[in-house]
């Protein structure tokens, strides 16, 4: 698929959907890369103590991963001038992978569409991300400059 152009998209144009699976190892890696070492993202005992259903994926890991639906579509990650989300529901990530880190995990389904065409070659893209049928990010919007 060739990169989208402002003239070539309209309100309602769908972006290719993607799914992303988060495993416990992904959370550990993201904690290290981001510096967010909140224990609810890696410690089962404390997650249970504070009443959570399981260890939770970092909201920012979900936000950063889901952005790929937009950046992969645009082809140029720097074309995004604004990106925002509301965290509505956390993604629980069980410790259920094999010794080599494969299998198990929690899968988030992501779709997106152009919901407005703006001036200056900008478009508004609204992203929908669900886990287990429930919305995990609301008001998930990217403003993208297209050629």
């Amino acid at each position, binding site marked *: 698929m060739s990169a989208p152009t402002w003239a070539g998209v309209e309100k309602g144009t769908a972006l290719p959907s993607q799914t*992303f699976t988060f495993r416990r190892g992904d959370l550990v890696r993201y904690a*290290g*890369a981001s510096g967010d070492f909140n224990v609810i993202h890696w410690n089962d005992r404390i997650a249970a103590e504070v009443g959570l259903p399981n260890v939770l994926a970092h909201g*920012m890991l979900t936000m950063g991963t889901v952005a790929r639906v937009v950046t992969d579509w645009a082809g140029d*990650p*720097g074309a995004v001038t*604004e*990106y925002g989300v*509301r965290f509505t529901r956390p993604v629980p990530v069980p410790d259920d992978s094999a010794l080599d880190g494969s299998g198990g995990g929690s899968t988030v389904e992501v779709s997106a569409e152009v919901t407005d065409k703006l001036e200056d070659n900008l478009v508004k893209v609204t992203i929908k991300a669900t886990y287990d049928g429930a919305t995990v990010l609301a*008001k998930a919007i990217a403003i993208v400059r297209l050629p």
Partner: protein
Amino acid sequence: MPVDPSLLGRTYPPSRPYEVGREKIREFADALGDDHPAYRDPEAAKALGYPDVLAPLTFPIVFALDAAMAVLRDLGIDLARVVHGDQTFRYARPLRPGDRLLTTVEVTGVKALAGNDVLTVECVSATEEGEHVVTSVCTLVHRGAE
């Protein structure tokens, strides 16, 4: 503990600059499982019109969330009771290696909602030369006692 409404408009000057590193960008992109070459290969980034590799969209959280947390520490709020409500980034341009960013923090919203305190914190990051690069806005929800 209700947060004092007079907090609205309070600003926090930048602490030491955060220097964006090439390998930190790679590490962050790896952690997102994002294999876009523009995060790793300067030639791929140049082909898109950038002087060097760029950082993923959510990279500014590496320094912005910590800057925002300064507000909570200042208030003596128990961080274990704080939930990230929403997050927005507005980019003047992509971040790149060598950027030395100073982040100024301002409390732009204070409200009570269903027994929770909701703070909106705006983090404006500019280079040491004063070029605005990114503004990160987050809302932090401080859950009231059960």
